[in-house]
């Protein structure tokens, strides 16, 4: 079962298996362990793989994997961002959006093979340093374009379009207000407030 370690991220997910921690230090990882970890990208928030976890020290969350390799999860998170790149959305939302693949992989061997095989293929196509080693989004997108017809890509994208955009916490970034019945609808809250026509 994947676990999201974050005081903030804990609010972001309805799943029960979330532990609240104030940061990577509280997850039992020493600074040394963090330094031993593998920095997986030089862009944006730094993701680190340590033990069974993907850690984001700068934003104080971690995602532990049960079935998938943590490196695979780190690559999935990067792949998710490259599929739906929103620069104002933090990595943890992409992590939440793809973490179910670990759960499904634990329950279903063929799903694990699909994801591990797909990521392995992605890394092989990316050359030395793998997918996460490609520094520019355009380079990674070029690799993704080669595999967009595969079951692996379609599985990841098809799940992501729901699991990313259905997170209420990111809706304000798009200007979407969500549920409105409890507020009495918009009849007194701007349904016709356009002032620039």
């Amino acid at each position, binding site marked *: 079962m994947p676990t999201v370690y974050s005081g903030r991220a804990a609010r972001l997910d309805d799943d029960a298996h979330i532990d609240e921690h104030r940061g990577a230090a509280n997850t039992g990882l020493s600074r040394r362990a963090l330094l031993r970890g593998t920095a997986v990208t030089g862009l944006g928030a730094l993701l680190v793989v340590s033990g069974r976890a993907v850690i984001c020290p700068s934003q104080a969350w971690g995602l532990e994997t049960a079935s998938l390799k943590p490196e695979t999860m780190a690559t999935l998170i990067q792949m998710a961002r490259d599929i739906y790149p929103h620069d104002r959305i933090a990595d943890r939302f992409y992590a939440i959006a793809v973490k179910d693949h670990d759960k499904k992989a634990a329950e279903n061997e063929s799903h694990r093979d699909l994801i591990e095989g797909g990521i392995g293929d992605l890394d092989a196509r990316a050359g030395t340093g793998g997918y996460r080693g490609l520094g520019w989004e355009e380079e990674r997108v070029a690799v993704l374009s080669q595999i967009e017809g595969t079951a692996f890509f379609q599985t990841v994208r098809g799940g992501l379009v729901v699991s990313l955009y259905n997170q209420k916490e990111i809706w304000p970034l798009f200007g979407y207000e969500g549920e409105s019945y409890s507020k009495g609808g918009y*009849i007194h809250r701007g349904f016709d407030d356009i002032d*620039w026509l």
Partner: protein
Amino acid sequence: MAAPYEHTDDSVVVIIGSGAGGGTLGNELAQKGIDVVILEAGARHEYEDFINDEWASFSQLAWTDKRMTSGDWRVATDFPNLPAWIVKAVGGSTTHWAGASLRFQEHEFKARTHYGALDGANLLDWPITLAEMEPYYARAEDKMGVTRTNDIPGLPGNNNFKIMKAGADKLGYKECNTGHMAINSQPRDGRNSCQQTGFCFQGCKWGAKWSTLYTEIPKGEATGHMEVRPNSQVLRIEHDKTGKVTGVVYADKDGNEQRQKARIVAVAGNSIESPRLLLNSASSMFPNGLANSSGQVGRNYMRHMTGSVYAVFDKPVHMYRGTTMAGIVRDESRFDPSRGFVGGYEMETLSLGLPFMAAFLDPGSWGRSFASALEGYENMAGMWLVGEDMPQETNAVTLHGTEKDAFGMPVANVNFSDHANDLAMRNHAYAQGSALYDAVGATRTFPTPPYPSTHNLGTNRMSEKARDGVVNKHGQSHDIANLFVSDGSQFTTGASENPTLTIVSLAIRQAEFITGEMAAGKL
């Protein structure tokens, strides 16, 4: 009080489905003292249970049981097991519909006469005229509380409408307003007025939008002549050796098979389930399925020429606030082949929330172009384009050869390919929709492909002659006198208007016919 009827009671009219057709027919018969059992495949959720959340609501209301697709329509690629976005619940798709209630036009009842013989199109005139329908349209509008009829004021326009209106004015369109909507603009019939909540598709939590769930059905139940059985999926219709139908076999809430006897059976499961049921009721006497001597059951599947145009502006719109279908342009809904196609189309505002916009704006698309489109969501306006598509014999609902549902019933396969006329009309509509928004200063427009079908029509069509269709002008099957079709599957052609008002009007008319035939001892 809801009246419970015995399974062995063969005096009841059994109606399959509780939506616009079935729910209305049931109430109309019950009001006349005729005993009715409505079997509904879905559960009963009252309107306070509806959810202002797109995916959660979809799970609550949508028909998500497996269906298959084929043909060259994009839905078959993007949503291979979801050909239609319709409802499995008491109230049927009247819980989900947007509320647009437009009468068909005279020429649309005579499509074959006006449009001629188009290659590949299986056009036919309706065996009924606008003049014959007008009194029933009037009764339906009153029943449903349609705005701009019966002295009911129009709804106020929201931001999405104001953009549409400004663009329509610039393009010189004359017929643009907030529509004929079965949504209360003021309290009426014991129901609230619209609070501009913005979740029409998820079921109106105010009960302001007409739905059989909280109008026809409780009114019918109150007569003591109607019972609604939710979670009851009909598997087949049975008949005797004279060829008259005698009842139905259905799976109850526990999955056990039950047999309900009937004097008359009316099928109103929407245009995918209704032909599926008739085809699955094949017997040695009716080897091709019930009411199918013409071979037309399941054929001529229509889904309207649809598409959407969304546009991004340099300033906020908040299109999701307020009535989802908040306004209409009707100028293109006319017969004018000089545009390069027959039939016409309506332009109606539409909005999706962010989760569904992500799923439906350009299914399968990804990358920065797509992501940046969604980042324009706050500044986005949108319209749906709904026009008359051509009936084609090969566009058909059939029983799948191997896939079966939880009760062992073959699932439906929906085969659909656009006719050349549909494509020409869609391209015209995309261009006009984009021009409308460009006229108001859109910075980017998106010609959005059709969603899974919401208007499913024509698969048990009405015809004057038995060889051309499945039912007569009363929805009575040509082959079996006590078997009726009461939903949009009886449409001979699709017209350009949203179908619900016509379905309700036909149900009122059908109830009158059935009552008369029963009184005359013919049924």
